[in-house]
C-alpha cells in the first residue's frame, strides 16, 4: 500500500468518526437554537393554535422587553446574585486553599471531603438548604431558639431572600474555586517564600508579594467560570424562594421558565431566552478576549 493510500484511508476514517457527533450536535443543539429564535418572532401561546406561525409582527416580543419591569428586574437580580456569589466563592475558596495547602497525608485525604457540596445533585443541595431555612425543622432556628435569638424568616423576607440564595450558592460552589486555587498554589516553588522569609518578610508580605501574584490568573479564571455558570442557580431558586417574595429573587432564567411553563407565553419566553443567551455568550466571549489580551501582554 502506498503512503497516500494510508493517508486516504485515515482521512476517510477521521471523517467517518467525526460525522455522527456533528450530525447529532447539529440536530439537538443547532436546530433547537434556530427554532428558539423562530419561536421568539411569534406570539406563540400553547392555548392559541394559530399563534405558532404568526409572523405578522416579528419583533413585537423584543420591542416589549425594555418596557417589561419584570424582565429588567430579573437582569438586576441576576447581576446581584452573580456578583455577590462569585465574590464570596473566590475569596472563601482562596482562604480555604491557603489553609489546606500543607504537605500532609491527613490533609490530602480530607481534601476530597471538601469537594462534596459541588458534586451533590443541585436539587439535593436545594433540599439541604430548604431544610436549613425552614423554621420548624431547621438546625439553624433550633440553635437560635436555644440562644434566645429571634431569627427572621430568611427565604420569605424581602431583605434576606436573595442573601439566602447567595449563601446556598456559595456553599455549593466554594469547592470549585478552592480546587482551582489549590492547584495554582501547589505550582509555587517553596524557594520563593523561603527566600522572602530569609530576607525578613512577614507572612502577610509573603502572601501579598509572592503568593497573590502567582494565583491572580487562576482567581480571575475561576471567577469567570463561576460567573458564566451562575445563571444555572435554578434549582435553588425553584425550591427556596420560587422567585419571591414578589420578584426579589426572580432571575431571568426563572422568569423565562415561568413565562413558558406557567403562563404558556412560549413566544415571549423565547425572546427573553434569546436575549439572555446573547448576554451569556457576549460575557463569555468578552472574558475569553480579555484573557487572550492578558496573555498577549504578559
Amino acid at each position, binding site marked *: 500500500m502506498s503512503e497516500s493510500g*494510508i493517508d486516504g*484511508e485515515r482521512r476517510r*476514517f*477521521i*471523517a467517518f*468518526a467525526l460525522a*455522527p*457527533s*456533528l450530525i447529532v*450536535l447539529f440536530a*439537538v443543539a443547532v436546530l*433547537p437554537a434556530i427554532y*428558539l429564535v423562530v419561536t421568539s418572532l411569534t406570539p406563540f401561546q400553547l392555548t392559541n393554535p394559530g399563534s405558532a406561525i404568526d409572523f405578522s409582527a416579528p419583533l413585537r416580543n423584543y420591542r416589549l422587553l425594555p418596557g417589561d419591569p419584570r424582565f429588567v428586574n430579573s437582569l438586576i437580580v441576576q447581576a446581584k446574585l452573580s456578583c455577590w456569589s462569585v465574590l464570596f466563592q473566590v475569596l472563601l475558596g482562596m482562604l480555604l486553599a491557603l*489553609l489546606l495547602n*500543607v*504537605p500532609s497525608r*491527613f*490533609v490530602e485525604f*480530607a481534601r476530597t*471531603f*471538601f*469537594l*462534596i457540596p459541588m*458534586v*451533590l*445533585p443541585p*436539587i*439535593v443541595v436545594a*433540599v*439541604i438548604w430548604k*431544610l*436549613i431555612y*425552614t423554621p420548624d*425543622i431547621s*438546625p439553624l432556628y433550633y440553635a437560635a431558639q436555644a440562644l434566645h435569638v429571634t431569627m427572621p424568616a430568611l427565604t420569605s423576607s424581602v431583605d434576606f431572600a436573595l442573601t439566602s440564595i447567595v449563601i446556598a450558592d456559595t*456553599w455549593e460552589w*466554594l469547592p*470549585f474555586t478552592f*480546587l482551582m486555587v489549590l492547584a495554582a498554589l501547589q505550582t509555587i516553588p*517553596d524557594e520563593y*517564600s*523561603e527566600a522572602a*522569609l530569609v530576607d525578613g518578610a512577614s*507572612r502577610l508580605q509573603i*502572601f501579598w508579594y509572592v503568593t497573590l501574584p502567582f494565583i491572580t490568573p487562576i482567581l480571575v479564571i475561576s471567577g469567570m467560570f*463561576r460567573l*458564566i*455558570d451562575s445563571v*444555572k442557580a*435554578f434549582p435553588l431558586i*425553584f425550591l427556596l424562594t420560587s422567585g419571591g417574595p414578589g420578584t426579589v429573587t426572580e432571575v431571568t432564567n426563572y422568569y423565562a*421558565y415561568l413565562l*413558558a*411553563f406557567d403562563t404558556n407565553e412560549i413566544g415571549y*419566553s423565547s425572546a427573553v431566552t*434569546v436575549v*439572555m*443567551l446573547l448576554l*451569556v455568550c457576549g460575557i*463569555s466571549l468578552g472574558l475569553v478576549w480579555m484573557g487572550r489580551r492578558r496573555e498577549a501582554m504578559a
Partner: protein
Amino acid sequence: MNMPSSRRATPGRLAAISATLLILLSPFLWLLQMSFKSNDQILQFPPPLIFTPTLENYISLWHSAFSASFVNSLLSASLSTSLALLFGVPAAYALSRWTGRGKHSLSFAILVTRMAPPIAFTIPFFLFYRWIGLLDTITGLVLVYTSFNLPLVIWMMQPFFDTIPVSLEEAALVDGARTRTVFTRIVLPMVTPGIAATAILCFLYAWNDFFFALILTRTNARTAPVAVVNFMNYEGWEWGKIAAGGSLVMAPVLIFSLAVRRYLVSGLTAGAVKG
C-alpha cells in the same frame, strides 16, 4: 528541608482544617442523619443528636412510586452515557488526529453548543417532544442527556488521545493494519482509564439533572430528583421521605466522585465553560 512557616501542618492548623470541614459539611450531614429518624424524632425539640436509627423512611420509599423514579434515573443516565461515548469517543480521536485547518474552530464550536443555559434547549425540546409524543418518555430524556454530554466526551477524551504517540499507530499502519483496527485494538485500550472517568462524569451530569426532567417528564419517566421535590406537596412536607430520597439521590454521586476525583476538575471546568 525547612518548610516556610506558611506551609506547615501544625496541630493548630490541622484543628482549624477539621473544624472548617465539619462546619462546611454540617448541612449535608444534617440531611443524612434526618433520613434515619422517625417523624416524631424529626419534629422533636431540641433535636436528639443521639437516637436509635430507623430505616422506616427508606422502606416506605421502596414501596412507593419513588423506586420507579430511581430506576428511571438509572436508565436514562446510563443509556445516555453509553450513547454519548459511542458517538463522542471516535469524534474525540478524529479531532485529536486531524491536522487540517479549522480544527480549533470546530472544537470551539462543539463546546459552544453547551454554553447556553438549559432553558434555551428546553423550550424547543418541549415543543418538539409534545409534537412527536416524546414528552414523559425515557427515550426523550436519553436524547437530551446524550446531546448534553456529547461535547463533554469530546473535550474530555481529546487530551487522552493526544498523549498517544502517532508513531505507534503509524508503525501498525505500515504493517498493513487498517485505521479502524488500529483504533479499536491499539488506541482504545490505552485510553480506558480516560473513558471510565468520562463515563462517570457523563453519568453524574445526567443523574444530577433537575431542570430537563422537571419539564420533559410527568409521571411515567419522572426521575428521582424530581420525585424528591414531589414530597413537598400542599398537604404537608414529608421530611423523613425527603431526607431519605435526597440521600438516595446523592449516594451514587458520592461513590462515583471519589472514584474520579482526579478528573473532576477538567470535567467540571469543561462543564462550566458550557455554562
